[in-house]
């Protein structure tokens, strides 16, 4: 379907790639022009994704704006894009965070500018494509396209151990994705199509035993990306070594590709296996919640602390998905967005300090609140959002997940709730050590507060943090129908049993 006479999804997906070519054509010496072009394109992509909202029909749980073209006739793969409320939210998150990340790189990135923005824009095309593709091969292609620019973002502009972190990220993820590819091939053997909509419509075609194997193959691909314990070890390295914008995208969007994969493909296409393995996944999710939080408590490096907190938060998302109730699943989707906003903002905040002091060690700071009041205020809001303070976005998502999980098992809910308490502990302790107390380190005396440009990058995130926290209905309306539809496929018993 078209909007204003253009195939809107293709337009949204490939607009960043177009921007990439514009940046490529600019001479490398014209740094200002390159920066402007990249930022303008990132902004345009965000506006274009907002345009999707205008024509989007939230009352329907179906795929919308569907574009379908034959692609590889030899195997019956199609160029098939479509979006429902889940994809829409994640696409909006992607375009917003990419714009914010690009803006935040204005002063931070000084070397090899042109390549940097080329990779950023290529990355955006890949990420949007992942959330829109409904043909499994097309999905796989976009999934892999994301890897290469991220490898270079970490490897060229990263910290000290960037080479190690970059290749570790790449190999881990690639290992998972080739397992997923084999799963896709086997699934295709059962369905004779790569078309997600056709697979869902066909219903229970795949025998339960086969579903189990395919589920495991998909699990490797998605769980490494999320990352679920015990596949999380690439994440602290990649997050710590990546440049600020890379961490923002990595935590904000790339991790969501994993949980999105579970929700979009594993649950509805392999319902029997999903039900069978759900307790295992919930178990891993609970371990991640508690373990991630405990490890966060012990970190000396701010970025590493936030990286481990991501493990904990993504554990919440996975718990919500595999509780297999509509309320918990909706909470999980909302929590994906919340985590993208709050963790993205936290990485930006650390980036601000790092740009000024070139260190991220907590012990180097203290008493910053006096020197940088605006910064401290922004940090406080974001930290509270991450903790899940009522009135801010984190609370809504976590509360919905707990509500949805409770009827299934109060023990799961109880364990998850301890994660929230631990989350408050490490976040508040971090805040206390960095912001309060006396400003003792002389190097911090001359720190500048946030500049107007920096504040501008945080503003949209803060607005959304409050908006989702106070009035989440517009966001929940978007995901209501599609999430319910998926949960209905995987756990029909939940809707039948009178209680």
């Amino acid at each position, binding site marked *: 379907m078209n909007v204003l006479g253009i195939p809107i999804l293709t337009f949204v997906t490939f607009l960043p790639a177009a921007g990439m070519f514009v940046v490529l054509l600019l001479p490398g010496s014209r740094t200002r022009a390159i920066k402007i072009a990249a930022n303008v394109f990132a902004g345009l992509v965000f506006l274009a994704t907002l345009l999707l909202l205008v024509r989007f029909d939230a009352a329907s749980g179906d795929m919308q704006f569907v574009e379908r073209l034959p692609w*590889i*006739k*030899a*195997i019956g793969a199609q160029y098939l894009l479509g979006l429902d409320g889940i994809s829409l939210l994640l696409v909006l998150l992607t375009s917003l965070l990419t714009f914010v990340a690009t803006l935040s790189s204005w002063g931070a990135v000084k070397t090899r500018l042109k*390549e940097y923005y080329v990779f950023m824009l290529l990355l955006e095309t890949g990420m949007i494509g992942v959330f829109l593709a409904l043909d499994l*091969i097309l999905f*796989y*292609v976009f999934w*892999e*396209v994301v*890897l*290469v620019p991220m490898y*270079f973002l970490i*490897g*060229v502009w990263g910290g000290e151990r*960037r*080479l190690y972190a*970059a*290749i570790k990220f*790449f*190999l881990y993820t*690639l*290992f998972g994705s*080739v*397992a997923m*590819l*084999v799963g896709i*091939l*086997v699934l*295709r*053997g059962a369905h004779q199509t790569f078309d997600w909509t056709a697979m869902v419509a066909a219903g229970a075609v795949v025998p339960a035993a086969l579903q189990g194997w395919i589920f495991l193959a998909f699990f490797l691909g998605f769980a490494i990306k999320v990352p679920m314990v015990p596949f999380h070890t690439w994440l602290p390295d990649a997050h710590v070594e990546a440049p600020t914008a890379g961490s923002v995208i990595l935590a904000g969007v790339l991790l969501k590709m994993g949980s999105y994969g579970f929700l979009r493909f594993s649950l509805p296409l392999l319902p029997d296996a999903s039900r069978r393995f759900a307790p295992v996944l919930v178990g891993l999710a609970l371990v991640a919640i508690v373990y991630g939080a405990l490890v966060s408590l012990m970190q000396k490096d701010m970025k590493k602390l936030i990286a481990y907190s991501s493990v904990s938060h993504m554990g919440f998302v996975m718990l919500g998905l595999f509780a297999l109730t509509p309320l918990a699943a909706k909470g999980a989707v909302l929590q994906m967005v919340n985590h993208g906003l709050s963790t993205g903002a936290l990485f930006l905040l650390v980036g601000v300090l790092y740009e000024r002091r070139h260190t991220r060690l907590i012990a180097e700071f203290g008493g910053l609140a006096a020197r940088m009041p605006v910064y401290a205020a922004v940090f406080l809001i974001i930290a509270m959002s991450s903790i899940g303070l009522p009135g801010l976005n984190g609370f809504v998502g976590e509360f919905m997940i707990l509500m949805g999980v409770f009827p299934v098992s109060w023990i799961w809910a109880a364990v998850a709730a301890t994660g929230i308490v631990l989350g408050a502990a490490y976040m508040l302790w971090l805040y206390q050590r960095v912001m309060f107390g006396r400003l003792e380190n002389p190097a911090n005396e001359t720190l500048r507060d946030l500049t107007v440009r920096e504040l501008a990058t945080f503003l949209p995130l803060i607005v959304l943090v409050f908006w989702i926290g106070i009035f989440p209905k517009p966001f929940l309306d978007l995901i209501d129908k599609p999430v319910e539809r998926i949960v209905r496929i995987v756990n029909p018993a939940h809707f039948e049993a009178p209680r």
Partner: protein
Amino acid sequence: MTGPAGYAPGPLAPEIVLLAAAIAALAVHLFVERGGRRAAGYVSLAGIAAAGAALALTPPSAAALFGGHLAVDAFALYVKAVVLLAGGLTIVLAFRFFDVERGEPGEVYPLALLAMVGMMAAVSATDIVTTYVSFELFAIPSYVLAGIFKKERRSAEAGIKYFFLGTLSSAIMLLGLAFVFGLSGSTAYAEAGPALARLDGSAVLVAMSLVFAGLFFKASLVPFHMWAPDVYEGAATPLAVFLSTAPKVAVVAVLVRVMTSLFGGQAPAWSAVLQVVSVATMFWGNLAAMTQKSVKRMLGYSAIAQAGYVAIGLSAWGETGRTAVLFYLAVYVVMNAAAFGLILLADGGRGFDETVDGLRGLVRRAPVAAVSVLVVLLALAGIPPTAGFMGKYFLFNAAVGKGLVLLAAAGALNSVLSLFYYFRLGRAMFLEEALPGPAPSAGRVSLLVTVFLAVAAAALLVLGLLPDLLTTPAARAILEY
């Protein structure tokens, strides 16, 4: 020209053109005083182009020619086109190589063309005698090509090694073919195949094993791969391109023909053999490549591993597998030629001593070439959206279609393994700064090679996004033979 029915030379026009070009190139090389060597190269390139045109004009037909010795079917035409492509790419790279070396053994060009004539005949052969003769026709020039730099020790060693092991493998294959004749009483595939299928017992399997041993040697499949890294390393770089692509393409095509028409009755047996060989080849090639310091040796092992992927498609008997093999062969030629071409990029790169360190910081000196090579490396590792991914995908798909899920999984795992060493090159080019002092490859960057790499990368991307451009002719080639 007229003659008895079935003996008209028309369908063999490409081979005849190529042979004429080889003789012309030889004459130019010998008798033109100044610049005769380079002129021989131009003549050869023109000959390949003319042969390509003749190939395009040749209609495919399943008819047996020359008393059942040759068939110019769609399958043969497709593979011949790939062989011509490999030869053409080799000669373009050779121009650059001999500029750097300041010595141009002009006989390289006619020898390469003669070898190609042999390969093209082998692809068409439908009789065990023709198969063997055409094998020798391309093997003997190959030995000479490997050792063409007589004064370079490694080159001479490569030539000798290739010659001894090659003749040994030819002899083993000949023994197998003799078994085939003895068991079936015929030399033509069309008659011997059904006769072998009616026989049961181990004699047929012995014959098959001997023939396969000879073919696996030429295709550098484990356990007959030992010669390959040494020969590729010792041969001049463009000739390493030639030796690692063209014969492999022809031999795989012969394998397909032999498997289907000669040993069609033994499909379960050869499929099992090829599955084992495929897994062993992929793992051996990739793991050995990881430990290499010399880029050329690394690419030599990578070429072995790539043959292992092709074997996945061979072992998945049936049309899907064979189509996938044909697709992959064409893509492989482009990928491999471009990867070796990297070594020729700069003046300093003599092609014998290039280490990974020499590539450091290449993106600063030659951004277009570095990005192109990155695309090629991604294709070799099988990362979308490149043709290398599509090729591997088709191979895995064929395996899964036959229930060989574990084989496909092994292939997929190997694509991850291969990334270790392909990305060592990528890392050196993009992420590491050049070493202090003049880097081994810090010379003038060659425009010819840059264009070559860029075109190869563009082709790999286009075929990765629109694979139907190649699957359509490949599928037709498989259906009509």
